[in-house]
């Protein structure tokens, strides 16, 4: 099998939404699905609950030697739609890149949907429905993970769910697994 190109992913969220956990679960799933070189890291700095945060993931068939930040992602994942008012989430996104947004809107509602592959899913609604809450606030990281296999062929829903089951047990695990399935089923794509 020939080596597939490196995939770089940038996740935007707010402190407390679990962007870093999402990046970690995503690469663990990718490793499980046969990508031997993976990396997940936060934006290096102090994090505050509610403030805009970034997390990064790299997925490769080979050991990754890169240690720098990601400036030109292949995929952008937005955990909180309101971030888009204050952060240019499209900055550096590669030509033909993909963007997955937690929103109740449709892909065609976004002006950039003629330039990029846009996926949308109401991860907040799914988190609320499944009572995935921390301190009463919906945690959208696991629901949105469920939608990723539809825009990234390096990772399967099964592997994501497998890693959720490793991280959480019992009811917590079941709720999160169910949420990923719902996100997978409900996600909408523009192309």
């Amino acid at each position, binding site marked *: 099998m020939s080596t597939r190109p490196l995939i770089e992913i940038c996740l935007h969220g707010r402190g407390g939404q679990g962007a870093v956990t999402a*990046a*970690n679960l995503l*690469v*663990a799933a990718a*490793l*499980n699905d046969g990508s*031997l*070189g*993976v*990396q*997940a*890291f*936060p934006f*290096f*700095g*102090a994090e505050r609950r509610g403030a805009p945060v970034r997390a990064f993931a790299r997925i490769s068939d080979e*050991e*990754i*030697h*890169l*240690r*720098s*930040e990601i*400036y030109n992602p292949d995929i952008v994942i937005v955990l909180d739609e309101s971030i888009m008012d204050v952060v240019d989430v499209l900055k550096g996104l590669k030509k033909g890149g993909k963007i997955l947004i937690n929103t109740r809107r449709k892909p065609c509602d976004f002006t950039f949907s003629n330039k990029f592959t846009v996926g949308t899913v109401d991860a907040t609604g799914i988190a609320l429905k499944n009572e995935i809450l921390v301190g009463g606030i919906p945690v959208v990281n696991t629901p949105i993970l469920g939608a990723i296999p539809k825009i990234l062929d390096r990772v399967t829903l099964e592997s994501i769910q497998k890693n959720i089951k490793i991280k959480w047990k019992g009811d917590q695990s079941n709720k999160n697994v169910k949420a990923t399935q719902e996100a997978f089923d409900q996600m909408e794509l523009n192309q």
Partner: protein
Amino acid sequence: MNNVMIDTGNYIAAKAAVMTQPDVVAAYPITPQTTLVEGIAKYHETGEFKGEYICVESEHSAMAACIGASATGVRTFTGTSSHGLLLMHEMLHWAALARLPVIMCNINRVVGPGWNIWADENDSISQRDTGWIQFYCSSNQEIFDTIIQSFKLGEHEKVSLPVMINYNAFILSHTSMPVHIPTQKEINDFLPKRKPLWNLDINNPITFGNIILPPEYEKVRKEMQESQENAKKLIKEISKEWKNKFGRYHGDLLELYECEDAEYILLSMGAIGAESKVAINNLRKKGLKIGLARVRTFRPFPKEEILKISKNSDLIVIDRNISIGMEGALFSEIKASLYGKSDSKVYGFISGLGGKDVTFQDIEKMCEKVINGKANDLEWYGLEGV
């Protein structure tokens, strides 16, 4: 795939430390080392770490506690960063002069003020003369493997010195990567129990650290120097043994990459050493004959190996540190290694201070500046206004 653990540099370091089955860990938390000691504390709670975990009130005390424990002949480990390391300074000399193999991770972080928690090597570089062996790692796997190997090295009767395993703040300490974890039995087979050269024993009281007259003191210093020389040989042997047993090799004193026919060789440490491989691949694609020698040990310094690679190559050095009033520390040491024995030119760059990102494109630009004859002896790369 069962033996692959995917986690951050700090949690991987905690795992490695616990698998060496230390008798005592004494530590004080400091960003970005915090999750390392949290990890060990967690293993203590679950029972996987069966030794003594001593919470202390400062890093000076952490090192003092490790020294006291190590002097009784047991295995000790700690971790720190930046100002924590600096607060230990007196005790670092003490551990080395007492010939106690305390093993410590230092997460390379900026020294303040201006408060900054990001990657920079000036904290450990400024501990250069304490007598500690210093490794610089470039991946989480290397952190794991080097910690285990360091116990074998430091506790070896021909070395008997403390070892500092350095890795960059956040770039490694907080980045998750997959790491192969051997079984506990495999680690135990590789790393036998510590056999101390001397130890404090209440049934056989001795005094240590009493007055020492000039001739004896000088002898102690010479023996430390000889032990660092012994370490050079042992680092090679131990990394070879590790390679044979586990199939992984990160180099010994140096890691050489694409150096065979190189007209230029880039030298750097830590995470920049990993990113440099990407730059070397790209420069090679452009037809440039360039290689990389990643410096893994700053003490003992690989001066013979560097002289050897300079035979047919000019050298380009990137320092994520600066000895103010002179130049980058690695740059200085490399030039000293060549003095009077080599005609190779050496070019130094200061880059990535304060945690500034150093990308493979940056590294390519630095190398091309040298190759195109545009570089001065010492350059501040990418600094505004320079």
